[in-house]
């Protein structure tokens, strides 16, 4: 009897220990947060990103309202660039009439003087559930400007029907003396992309967006992956270094030789994704958010089930190579002009809580919380599609190890507006790489000097 009692107690303790472990997705339900305060009579106004899957998150708001007594008003739901323009204009004209604002690691530096330091509202315990790399990228001069919602990073997407084709493998071996394997550096990307086009195996060897911040971001990514710097530690433009010239020359060669689409300089994310979707492109870096679109045979019959994912490649040969990993995170901030800051912080805690983040991750967004990563990877293990789980494991590695934001300065977008037309002109042959980048660096320097980073 005594032994039986000891066994029962031991078993119960073991069960209790397991249920305490945050990583045990199967045993416990994901939890909400931010519901522990009485906010009766408080109206929290929010201006946020909208469109498509972004709006699914807001369906959880009634739960927050019911539990806290607060009322939440969505005063604006706009696409990413429109919400940025709204925030800029509202901040400039003191027209902010909302408590929670959309934010993004690539844009937040512009707004830093208009946002609350969230360290006042979020403790270290609150923040430890988020990826440390992302929290670091959300902080400028010790001021935490945003709480991340979900992350963006790109994986190398490659066509398994090409890489797995025995004839193509043999042809590659004959042409180069090497086995055809998924490339791990930019030199191999170049070699293989050219091989696919020359052999007629793919219309385009590589795919990329070619305008606006998208192009500047991809240039920035290839630059740092090749050991180069965009700006030095003292904010001097450095993208016109030898490494920068090599990357620009590579892009020019790709355009001239038809390795990338001829209208690449007019493509942003949707047009670029459409080329991969219809089977025109052999490999490309692409954001994880497109995965379900690519895997859906109704939308992408040419490639559904016929592509794989790999970690971002390292750059051109030389010192300081590292994997690509241009990344960012959509997030929430509290403007300094907000009327209900504490209530706003509670709402943000709720919207970034484990349960809400998990629901959003199930739609395909990359989470920023370790506990949610564990859950969705466990969920994906049950999928018949092996890539569903591999994708998440790869993304988790990239987010934790390769995550790199652009320089966290307000002048990132104005500098981007100088650099991307220059890269376009280099690609089109209107400018020589060195001369073009030197001029862009000079113009960028003027912007930074005017902003007070150093003397002119």
């Amino acid at each position, binding site marked *: 009897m005594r032994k039986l009692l000891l066994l029962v107690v031991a078993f119960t303790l073991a069960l209790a220990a397991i249920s305490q472990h945050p990583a045990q997705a199967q045993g416990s339900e994901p939890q909400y947060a931010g519901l522990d305060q009485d906010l009766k009579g408080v109206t929290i106004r929010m201006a946020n990103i909208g469109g498509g899957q972004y709006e699914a998150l807001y369906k959880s708001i009634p739960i927050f309202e019911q539990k806290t007594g607060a009322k939440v008003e969505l005063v604006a739901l706009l696409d990413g660039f429109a919400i940025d323009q709204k925030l800029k204009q509202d*901040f*400039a004209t003191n027209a902010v009439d909302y408590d929670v604002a959309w934010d993004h690691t690539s844009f937040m530096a*512009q707004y830093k003087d208009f946002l609350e330091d969230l360290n006042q509202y979020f403790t270290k315990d609150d923040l430890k559930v988020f990826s440390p790399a992302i929290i670091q990228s959300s902080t400028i001069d010790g001021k935490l400007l945003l709480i991340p919602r979900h992350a963006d990073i790109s994986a190398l997407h490659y066509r398994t029907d090409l890489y797995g084709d025995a004839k193509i493998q043999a042809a590659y071996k004959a042409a180069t003396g090497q086995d055809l394997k998924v490339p791990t550096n930019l030199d191999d990307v170049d070699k293989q992309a050219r091989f696919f086009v020359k052999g007629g195996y793919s219309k385009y060897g590589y795919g990329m967006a*070619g305008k606006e911040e998208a192009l500047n971001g991809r240039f920035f990514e290839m630059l740092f992956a090749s050991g180069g710097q965009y700006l030095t530690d003292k904010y001097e433009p450095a993208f016109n270094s030898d490494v920068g010239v090599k990357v620009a020359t590579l892009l020019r060669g790709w355009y001239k030789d038809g390795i990338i689409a001829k209208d690449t300089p007019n493509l942003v994310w949707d047009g670029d994704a459409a080329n991969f979707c219809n089977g025109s492109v052999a490999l490309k870096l692409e954001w994880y958010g497109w995965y379900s679109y690519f895997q859906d045979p109704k939308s992408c019959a040419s490639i559904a089930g016929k592509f794989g994912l790999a970690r971002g490649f390292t750059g051109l040969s030389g010192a300081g190579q590292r994997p690509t990993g241009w990344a960012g995170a959509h997030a929430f901030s509290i403007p300094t002009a907000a009327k209900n800051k504490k209530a706003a912080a509670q709402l943000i805690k709720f919207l970034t809580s484990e349960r809400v983040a998990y629901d959003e991750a199930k739609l395909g967004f990359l989470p920023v919380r370790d506990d949610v990563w564990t859950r969705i990877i466990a969920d994906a293990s049950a999928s018949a599609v092996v890539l569903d789980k591999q994708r998440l494991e790869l993304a988790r590695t990239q987010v934790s190890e390769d995550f790199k934001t652009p320089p966290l300065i307000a002048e990132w*977008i*104005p500098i981007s507006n100088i650099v991307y037309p220059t890269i376009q002109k280099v690609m*089109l042959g209107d400018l020589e790489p060195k001369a073009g980048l030197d001029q862009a660096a000079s113009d960028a320097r003027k912007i930074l000097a005017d902003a007070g980073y150093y003397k002119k």
Partner: protein
Amino acid sequence: MATNASVNLPSSAAARRSRRPAPGAGRWFPLFLILPSFIFILIVIGFPLIYSLYVSFTPYELLKPKSLNFELSTALNNYQTLLNDPVFWKALLNTVIFLTITVNLEYVLALALSQLLARVSFGQSILRTLLMIPMMFAPVLVGFQFRWFFNENLGLVNNILGVFGLTGHAWLVEEPYGLFSIILATIWMNLPVMTIILLAGTLSLPFELYEAADVDGASAWQKFRKITLPLLAPFTYIALTLRSLDVSRAFDIVRIMTGGGPGNRTELIWTYVARLSIDSTKFGLGSAMSWITVIMSLGFTVYLFRQLVKSRIVK
């Protein structure tokens, strides 16, 4: 019997007499009636215009309130920066080319269409309604539509060309196709506007003149050249003025189709103003560029209105 190709309009003196207030009526009463509208226009248009002129003389950046600071020594910096900016000149040149080709081509097509429509005796109202369809689309939607039409890989145009064994182009990238693609989209959307104005003008012309011309044995071309065109002059100048002002501020379609790129190849004044003012937050610089454009537009409008008045004077 030959007729004078010009229409007998009331003389200027007679027109002025007809506009004088009746003896005994308060001279100030009409002014009093339009005063509320005048004040409203002053507040809504006048004040922002003057304010933006002030801003154009400052180094104002949208998210740096302290930069809204006028100093005489640096007042002209924005204008000097623009005059030395090759992108500004490129945008200006592109805008002039865009305006000239779009408005003139639209006029020729609209004139032809209006003459054809004027001669249709059956189903004219249905045809007019169908003609208006492109105008019902928002410019943003037209921009998206044509951007996909001209997509190099997936677009309708290259696919049709491929069917006939012809080589497609990167229409929105290669020069000069980029600008011409935008011109085509703009004309498609706005042709109905000019056509309707010219059609209204055509339908209002006195048919007795054409009867008289028929008696004199005038050919169709002679009637068109000597009667229709001169009498349509006032309508022509109104249409050209309206469309010129519209086209010169083109933004939506260009922003969606090319964003002014690639490499500033299709940059127009307003895409550059928007990028400077909002994306790059250089509001002072954007205001300076806007004012340069406003002054040029005013000059152009004054010229067109003078031509309009001249076209109404009896010979």
